[in-house]
């Protein structure tokens, strides 16, 4: 099948679309991490004393922790003293309230409008560039309904009581190595609070962009949905093409109160490194939500196509009775990418339900693992879980792995897990070919059908982009 080889080679040549660098004046702090650096970050953001104490406590904990090594990943040694922990575009001192035109151009190029436009009226955006939030759109419109949507730094200043109440309530400071690091040095991210009974009228979204060389991005997002509210939140990310690896260690916390519903969608498209596996982002992220009240619902949807290494397990703690959660994931790895991703569903309350659908696609020399935990605690009467993990292999040099952990301590709880690993069958391709569909198109068709169940869960604004991304990431790979 020489045709396959050509197509696979073509795939390797595919350029990363968002790999440009924005040339603008930025301010940095000295590289490395110590208590002084944390004090500088805190001072730069004008934080109150309690926030600084929180950071310092996290830093002290982090120093005593060791790197997690249980994942099925080969992570090169990271020198945490060789990272710049804060980088921000310089503000024009004469026009401090205006957005730098260069920045605006950057986000325009990425398709993220920083001005409220009629065309994209359905989405409010918080745009984060390196360590700071550039702007948050539609704040006034949202404020009318009592919804708070702003950058995390602003939230610390303007809504300290809310931040203090919920910060680290889902992901404790010392939860894991990267979460502790994030708690010490986190820069910016989004804060969102939906008051009781309010249905958020538009999609909220954050867009993260790494630009500066030698930096890491440590964003922190906190979403609180009060009783009976609803919000759909989307997250996107890109970075320039570089030979060095950059670290992205985020923490996302979601609190879902009684009868509230949160839908969290991610399209992760960090720079994956080149065809030889050089460069790319290390995406080590802790995402966790708690279904705190009865009848609450949290839904995770993720499309993971980027990053050199992904280490990410969006999880849900189902505490409230009758609460439910879903996890839908498509993870694509190509070239030398590595992904170890999945979810955790911790059932505590009665009649809690969860559903996990994970679709892995590996091509090139990549390694793609699903790792997931389903735990039924003794009190989880009549709890129910269903998990399905499928892996698709494209080419004979990649790997696909499945590592589920299933624990049940309640006799009325039912857990089901199934997983399959296979490649695109000759029969399916033949079927398409004989109906006049070319090889490449047929693969696209089959992969899209394979991932459909997940893609259909994405908000409309994201679904189109995700489908494009999927076909781009895999263009031409034939099994």
């Amino acid at each position: 099948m020489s045709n396959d080889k050509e197509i696979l080679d073509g795939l390797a040549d595919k350029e990363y679309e968002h790999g440009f660098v924005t040339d603008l004046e930025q301010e940095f702090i000295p590289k490395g991490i110590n208590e002084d650096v944390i004090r500088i970050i805190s001072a730069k953001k004008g934080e109150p004393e309690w926030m600084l104490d929180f950071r310092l406590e996290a830093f002290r904990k982090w120093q005593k922790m060791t790197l997690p090594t249980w994942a099925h990943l080969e992570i090169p040694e990271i020198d945490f003293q060789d990272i710049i922990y804060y980088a921000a575009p310089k503000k024009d001192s004469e026009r401090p309230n205006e957005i730098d035109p260069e920045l605006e151009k950057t986000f325009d190029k990425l398709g993220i409008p920083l001005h409220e436009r009629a065309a994209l009226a359905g989405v409010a955006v918080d745009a984060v560039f390196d360590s700071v939030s550039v702007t948050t759109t539609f704040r006034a419109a949202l404020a009318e309904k009592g919804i708070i949507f702003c950058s995390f730094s602003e939230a610390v200043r303007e809504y300290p009581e809310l931040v203090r109440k919920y910060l680290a309530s889902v992901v404790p400071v010392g939860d894991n190595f990267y979460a502790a690091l994030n708690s010490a040095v986190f820069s910016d991210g989004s804060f969102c609070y939906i008051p009781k009974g309010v249905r958020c009228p538009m999609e909220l979204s954050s867009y993260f962009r790494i630009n500066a060389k030698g930096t890491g991005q440590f964003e922190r997002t906190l979403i609180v949905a009060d009783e009976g509210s609803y919000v759909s939140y989307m997250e996107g990310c890109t970075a320039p093409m570089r030979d060095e690896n950059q670290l992205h260690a985020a923490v996302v916390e979601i609190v879902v109160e009684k009868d509230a519903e949160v839908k969290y969608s991610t399209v992760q498209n960090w720079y994956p490194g080149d065809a030889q596996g050089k460069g790319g982002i290390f995406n080590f992220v802790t995402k966790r939500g708690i279904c705190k009240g009865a009848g609450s619902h949290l839904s995770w949807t993720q499309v993971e196509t980027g990053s050199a290494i992904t280490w990410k397990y969006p999880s849900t703690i189902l505490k409230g009775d009758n609460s439910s959660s879903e996890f839908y994931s498509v993870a694509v790895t190509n070239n030398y990418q590595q992904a170890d991703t999945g979810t955790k569903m911790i059932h505590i309350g009665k009649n809690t339900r969860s559903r996990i659908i994970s679709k892995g696609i590996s091509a090139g020399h990549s390694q793609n693992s699903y790792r997931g935990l389903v735990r039924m605690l003794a009190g989880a009467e009549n709890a129910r879980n269903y998990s399905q993990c499928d892996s698709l292999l494209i080419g004979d040099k990649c790997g696909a792995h499945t590592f589920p952990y299933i624990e049940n301590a309640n006799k009325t709880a039912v857990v089901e897990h199934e997983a399959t690993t296979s490649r695109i069958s000759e029969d399916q391709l033949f079927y398409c070919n004989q109906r006049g569909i070319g090889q490449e198109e047929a693969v696209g068709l089959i992969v899209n059908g394979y991932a459909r169940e997940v893609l259909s869960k994405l908000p409309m604004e994201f679904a189109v982009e995700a489908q494009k991304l999927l076909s781009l990431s895999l263009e031409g790979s034939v099994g």
Partner: protein
Amino acid sequence: MDVHNTVTVPAGQSFNKIYIAGNEEALPGKIVVEKDAKAEIVILSMPGTEYECSLEVVLAGRGASADIAGAYVCGHDEKIRISVDMRHEVPDCTSRQLFKGIAGGHSSVDFYGKITVVKDAQHTEAYQENHNILISDYAKVNTKPQLEIYADDVKCSHGATIGRLNEEEQFYMRSRGISLEDARVLQMISFLSPVLGTISDPELHGQKTAELEEAVRSIVKAI
């Protein structure tokens, strides 16, 4: 127990054995299956037996196949630890694993099953199932099925469930005059019977079925 003892099944031959937990003859630590050879193993663990086993199966020659089945019935405070490492090291091999068990009393069950398909072990078919039924509030089951696949032309799957006895089935039987206890026994036997189905010798099959039925009856009263 010597966990390092290895059984090699020579090319073209077959190896058939039933192991009973707690018996003198212990499961080998490793089974190597050569070209066109066949290994068929059944492991049974009855109530009141603590059981820990760790088995590595290497499919080392083309056309080799392995069928590993196991059933465990726990009604007291047994601890069952089963670990199977199935390694497909050459192309064209087939493996099937089926483990089913019932956990009652204060028992705890840990199942760990890994299927590894090395690079270039194409045309592999590897299947693994682990199903559990919890019948007590104090029993616990943890299961970790794992797939590590480095070849693409393969058919691999695993399935794991932890559940309970179906109440609708019980109602169906009770409405036909079968007592609740008998209904439960019937449910558990039918649940475990696929494991016994892998025993090809009819006499042995009958004997083990009777033993398992007795085991199930002994724990059903405690529900």
